[in-house]
């Protein structure tokens, strides 16, 4: 099944991201670019799959900023273009976005950031909404799955009306949720790409696309926003449901709309509480909001994560005279939390408190029993690397080398599966973890602290995709300033975390075409780093290499760990070795081992046999990488080349 297979006019169960892809295709999008990141990745994946058949161009770019630039080029040439990323990607793209917002666009251009309140698959819960306000761009937010499809189409029209970028924000609970969506027709596009710049400098539509003169362009941008504000006042995506004069008005947007409806329904408050769901959140449709606030007794803002609609409303309300003096509930009075994602229960509890209703989801007895039973009877599932994952082996060597060095060395982490190096899975090696590429930049800084007596060695790690995304400038910096640091590149041949998207180091692009693969090793050498390569599955040699590089070398050095992801198509389901445990040699829990393999190495393929007091291999789970052979102090874990 692909997004092309849904027939016009039919209702289908679509994931939010699928609805966005399909809507964009129906809108006639031609150029699509982005960088992988949960929960946004499927939007581009769905479009990449049908790129050939639909005659569109889809690209996984090196990072979010470049993806926005690539999409902008499509727009400058008169085509509809879309750019997709996760929330923090907008930070990366924001420098270009600031300028793009000023220069304006040509063909309809939509930026789709997918936020992740609660950081379900992130290491932050940043919000893209605030960028719309800061950079003065229109912001719309679908409130359900049908709207995800409908609003993206509308977004292109809006963009072409004002010749500027429109931001359509999704969240995890829409992008990664599914609902019924009625789809429309797919257009035939034939307009040719042409960049028109022949007119004079000040012509925004046929002159060069630039930001100067800045005050003039800035004024034009703000005028466009005023046009949009008027359109938003009457948008069908702003919906009110509830009594004419509600006791309490909920103002909400996005997935919070669904939580609010649920909460009102469960508490039976539909005669007392109204919901104003905003699809257009910046600029705020002030007149519409004022009208509803005016009719209500009090207001509750329900939104994720920081106050946005609430702030805009409160600021606007300052000029509303009497209307301003309502009771406002939301982030500032603590009714709604300012961290983490929301859910129906949070809104139920907030509503119950405000309206004075008693609510218990289940009896106290049930709740108590459930908590105890699940705590004692359902052992928790700690996250770990897959069996056969090269990261476990890499961290083993890094951890051991730093422990032997004994000077309190540590790993500056980065973003990918290997971020789990914070946990037992990576032997707790990671001690800093922030944004893409930051591990290397932070290590570059640590590497200059020797003059202040710092003897601890900083080792940065990054994945192959991350290397291209943001590590390269940091490495250039480290080499240039002769920082005493080391970068370990976990080259597992793909963007593994988000589902094996290609990157500049792979031989294929998003659409499956054969393209130029860029060699990380050569880049590092060209930058001037001291470059080495290791096979992480050879634990002894790799540990020695890491230790030698940490201890005996100075300046920026790079070690590239080459071993494909265990889930990569070339490896999945294929065992290199058949592993077994010689029970006569296994020392079990005795002094000299104390279950070293199962307690410390902790590969899911190694199982502790309580009855026999020995370790064993679960041949169903074991990926046959052979690495554990090298860790057994008694030599009890044996490996044999697997027969093909």
């Amino acid at each position: 099944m692909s997004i092309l297979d849904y027939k016009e006019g039919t209702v289908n169960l679509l994931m939010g991201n699928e609805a966005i892809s399909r809507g964009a295709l129906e809108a006639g999008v031609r150029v699509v670019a982005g960088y992988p990141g949960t929960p946004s990745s499927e939007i581009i994946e769905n479009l990449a799959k049908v790129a050939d058949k639909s005659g569109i161009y889809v690209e996984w770019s090196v990072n979010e900023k470049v993806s926005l630039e690539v999409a902008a080029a499509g727009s400058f040439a008169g085509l509809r273009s879309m750019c997709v990323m996760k929330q923090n990607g907008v930070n990366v793209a924001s420098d270009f976005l600031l300028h793009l917002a000023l220069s304006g666009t040509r063909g309809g251009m939509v930026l789709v950031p997918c936020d992740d309140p609660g950081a379900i698959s992130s290491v932050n819960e940043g919000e893209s909404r605030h960028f719309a306000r800061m950079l003065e761009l229109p912001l719309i937010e679908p409130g359900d799955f049908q709207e995800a499809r409908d609003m993206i189409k509308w977004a292109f029209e809006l963009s072409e009306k004002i010749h500027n970028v429109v931001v359509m924000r999704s969240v995890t609970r829409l992008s990664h949720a599914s609902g019924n969506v009625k789809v429309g027709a797919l257009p035939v596009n034939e307009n040719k790409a042409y960049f028109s710049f022949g007119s004079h400098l000040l012509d925004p539509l046929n002159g060069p696309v630039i930001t100067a003169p800045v005050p003039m362009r800035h004024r034009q941008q703000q005028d466009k926003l005023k046009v949009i504000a008027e359109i938003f006042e009457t948008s069908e995506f702003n919906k009110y449901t509830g009594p004419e004069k509600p006791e309490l008005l909920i103002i909400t947007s996005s997935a919070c709309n669904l939580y609010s409806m649920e909460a009102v329904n469960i508490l039976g408050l539909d005669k007392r509480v109204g919901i104003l769901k905003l699809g257009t959140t910046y600029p705020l449709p002030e007149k519409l909001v004022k009208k509803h606030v005016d009719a209500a007794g009090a207001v509750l803002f329900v939104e994720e994560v920081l106050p946005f609609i609430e702030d805009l409303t409160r600021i606007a309300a300052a000029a509303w005279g009497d209307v301003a003096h309502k009771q406002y509930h939301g982030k500032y009075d603590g009714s709604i939390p300012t961290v983490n994602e929301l859910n129906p229960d949070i809104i139920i509890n907030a509503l119950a408190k405000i309206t004075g209703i008693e609510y218990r989801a289940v009896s106290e007895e049930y709740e108590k029993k459930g908590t105890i039973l699940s705590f004692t009877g359902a052992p928790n599932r700690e996250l770990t690397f897959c069996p056969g994952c090269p990261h476990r082996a890499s961290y083993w060597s890094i951890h051991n080398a730093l422990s032997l060095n004994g000077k309190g060395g540590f790993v500056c982490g980065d973003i990918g599966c290997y971020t789990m190096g914070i946990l037992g899975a990576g032997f707790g090696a990671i001690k800093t973890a922030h944004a893409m590429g930051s591990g290397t930049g932070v290590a570059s800084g640590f590497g200059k602290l020797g003059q202040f007596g710092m003897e601890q060695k900083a080792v940065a790690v990054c994945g192959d995709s991350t290397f291209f995304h943001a590590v390269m400038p940091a490495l250039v910096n480290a080499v240039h300033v002769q920082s005493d640091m080391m970068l370990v590149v976990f080259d597992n041949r793909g963007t593994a975390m988000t589902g094996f998207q290609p990157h500049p180091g792979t031989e294929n692009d998003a659409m499956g075409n054969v393209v130029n693969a860029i060699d990380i090793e050569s880049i590092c050498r060209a930058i001037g780093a001291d470059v080495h390569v290791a096979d992480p599955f050879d634990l002894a040699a790799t540990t020695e290499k890491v230790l030698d590089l940490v201890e005996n070398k100075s300046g920026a050095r790079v070690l590239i760990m080459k071993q494909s992801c265990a889930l990569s198509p070339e490896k999945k389901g294929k065992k290199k070795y058949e592993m077994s445990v010689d029970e006569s040699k296994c020392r079990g829990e005795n002094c000299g081992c104390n279950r070293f393999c199962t307690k410390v190495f902790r590969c899911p393929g190694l199982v502790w046999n309580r009855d026999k007091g020995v370790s064993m291999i679960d041949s169903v789970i074991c990926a046959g990488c052979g690495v554990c052979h090298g860790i057994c102090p008694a030599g009890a874990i044996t490996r044999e080349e697997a027969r093909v």
Partner: protein
Amino acid sequence: MIRDPYNIIITGVGGQGNVMAARIIGNMLALRGFYVTIGETFGASQRGGSVMSHLRVSEKSAWSPQIPKGRADLVVALEPIESLRVMAQYGNTETAVVSNTRPVYPVGVICGDQKYPSMDELNGSLKQLCSNINFIDATEEAIRLGNPILSNVIMIGAVAGLGVLPVDDSDFEKVMSSNVPAGKLGINMEGYKLGKKLAGG
């Protein structure tokens, strides 16, 4: 259906095909004209963690992709102990449970640091929370049919067999025919019907 929305939680461990199972059941109901909302949790949880799909079925409208606490009507556990975890958070005394009997051991259990309960112990725990509990040897039966991957289809059959959802065999057949190659439809139908029988349907 006994309630609107009718709330189903499909739970299991990353990599078990939880999302696919939710989509099949969801599509069967969507074909019948119901509003279906599915909320999924994946991402880092794929790496050995617990995963859940929340399925909301309604004749009236779309619902929140997150089921409120205590509001699950049916819990489908592709992995046994996940049923208990979900029941504690989302269940109530009226919730029906259908659970596979084949464990996927957490790393802590594999490593010998934690203990995995026996099916009798698990059943005892669940019985303190609700009474409608159905254990299905889905993985064992799937292996007997020739492929452990069929266990999810058997579990879907078992859900149908409970008779709480307004779906029939043809809905399953329609959905599966657009999801699997034609040659695989037969064995999937067989698995589905077996699951239905095992659940007394």
